[in-house]
């Protein structure tokens, strides 16, 4: 099995977000970056598949220099090698461009299964997985919570979240799936894992290596401005005995908030 995991490095979900002066990006100094949580499930599932069926796990990521650390984290978990798409012209890549670049980079590689997180927790676009599957012309299953490889290794059966329940879907390989929470519990990198990861290969691919230029990296979605989310302010704490407080709450919900 040749397994590819697409990974994005994102600000830690607990990080404070400060918007830059130009209003188009965030202040990156002082922000700690992590592997996108949903991509961790993808890495873990890839490793479990490899442990069962053999093969190789390759982690590919598009990002600036610092993305190397996130790739290294995945290698420490047990992935075999990394590919880092890095070029000054990639810096403003939106999800559309990212999917295009990944499709170009992967089209020259052998793969049976591609795993992505169901979304990146920074831009929440949920775009790259399906768009990459489209770019490669392979079937997809999004928001999966279970994956089983067929005995002949020619298909996978997944459980995926649908409204009100789950759907069991079979996909012929090669295919792309996106990982939802519940798929597995990602492992922590072990100390030997971290030591080994230092020697594993991370291949850097720039625009020329990916085979793109100019319009290939033109954004489809332009950010006009970023603004802080409006802060909710503390409301009323309703005092008194529970029975009294509850009466007052119902009155407020009805008369003031008109929420009933």
């Amino acid at each position: 099995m040749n397994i590819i995991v697409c990974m994005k490095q994102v600000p830690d979900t607990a990080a404070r977000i400060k918007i830059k002066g130009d209003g188009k990006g965030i202040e990156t100094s002082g922000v700690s970056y992590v592997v996108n949580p949903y991509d961790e499930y993808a890495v873990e599932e890839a490793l479990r598949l490899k442990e069962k069926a053999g093969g190789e796990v390759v982690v590919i990521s598009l990002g600036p220099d610092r993305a190397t650390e996130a790739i290294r984290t995945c290698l420490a978990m047990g992935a075999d090698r990394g590919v880092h798409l890095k070029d000054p012209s990639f810096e403003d890549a939106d999800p559309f461009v990212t999917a295009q670049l990944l499709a170009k980079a992967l089209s020259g590689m052998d793969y049976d299964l591609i795993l992505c997180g169901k979304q990146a927790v920074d831009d929440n676009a949920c775009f790259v997985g399906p768009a990459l599957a489209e770019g490669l012309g392979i079937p997809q299953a999004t928001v999966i919570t279970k994956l089983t490889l067929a005995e002949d290794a020619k298909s996978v059966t997944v459980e995926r979240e649908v409204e009100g329940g789950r759907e069991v879907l079979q996909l012929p390989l090669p295919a792309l799936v996106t990982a939802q929470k519940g798929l597995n519990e990602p492992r922590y990198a072990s100390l030997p894992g971290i030591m080994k990861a230092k020697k594993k290969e991370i291949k850097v691919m720039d625009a020329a290596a990916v085979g793109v230029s100019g319009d290939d990296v033109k954004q489809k979605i332009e950010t006009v401005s970023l603004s802080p989310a409006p802060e909710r302010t503390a409301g009323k704490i309703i005092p008194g005995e529970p029975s009294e407080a509850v009466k007052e709450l119902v009155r407020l919900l009805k008369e003031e908030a008109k929420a009933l």
Partner: protein
Amino acid sequence: MSGVMVIAEIKEGKVKKSSFEVTAAARSLCDQSGAEVSVALAGSGVEGLAGEFGTYGADKVYLLDDPKLQPYSTDGFTAALARLIEEKSPDAVLAGNSILARDLLPRLAARLGSGLMTDCIEISIEDGHLTGLYPVYGSKARAKARCAGEKPHFATIRPNVIAAEAADPPRSAAVEKVAPALEAVRTTVLDNIRETGGKVELTEASVIVSGGRGVKNAENFKILEELAAVLGAAIGASRVAVDSGWRSHADQVGQTGKVVNPRLYIACGISGSVQHLAGMGTSRTIVAINSDPEAPIFEKADYGIVGDLFTVVPLLTEELKKALDN
């Protein structure tokens, strides 16, 4: 402007409320220009649903009715809708933000060479560009963005942001049957496991009762369910409640769960981490019930009661029963 197309979604034989919301949103986008609002209704045996969209302002319904479009498949819907969009060339294509939309629209947009703005809480057309506002960075910031490049432009809209109000004047949408382009579907649905069939979908619920660490175990969620029954509410849960195995992950609200946007959110025994707030921060009214007066949820709640939820919640259920009976 050559119009806005809405991709309708059907669940359990009915049009989803969010599809009507998006139709109403498309109507207000087109009212500036007088352009056409069309709806793409795809499925099998769905003709009877086509008549409902005029109320919300649709001028036209394209009916793609074929047994091969049931159940939903990414391949089948992408092929059918891509062809329809190419033929009718709307300027914008919109859908309610749902699990299905997040599976279909990225693939559809990619096939047609477009980007997608996901989970918009505002939508407009500025200088001819579809422009949206959507939460980013765990809802700590909002991005105003616009679609560049060739049309059509694509966006999904968060449920409960725009009211599904009847258009004034209501229209009678012309129904045009379209033979859908069919492509081989590579995936096979082996089973469909209903878990909350018939219940209110969390992401579209108007009222949510949610429980966290303070609920202490799975059985205790019963008192939240009793409250929810009175309010016609959906049940949500914090990450702690899900990770402890008290509720299924489908119920989780927060940055690694669902984003909800109800009229009323009642948080019971939830401390209110930033990750939880990322999932429910746009709720119109938030009520917090927590025994810890220092819980951060009280800084975000409109109304708070400091007290034991095992005392307060049943009292609230009784009080609401009385209030709603009147």
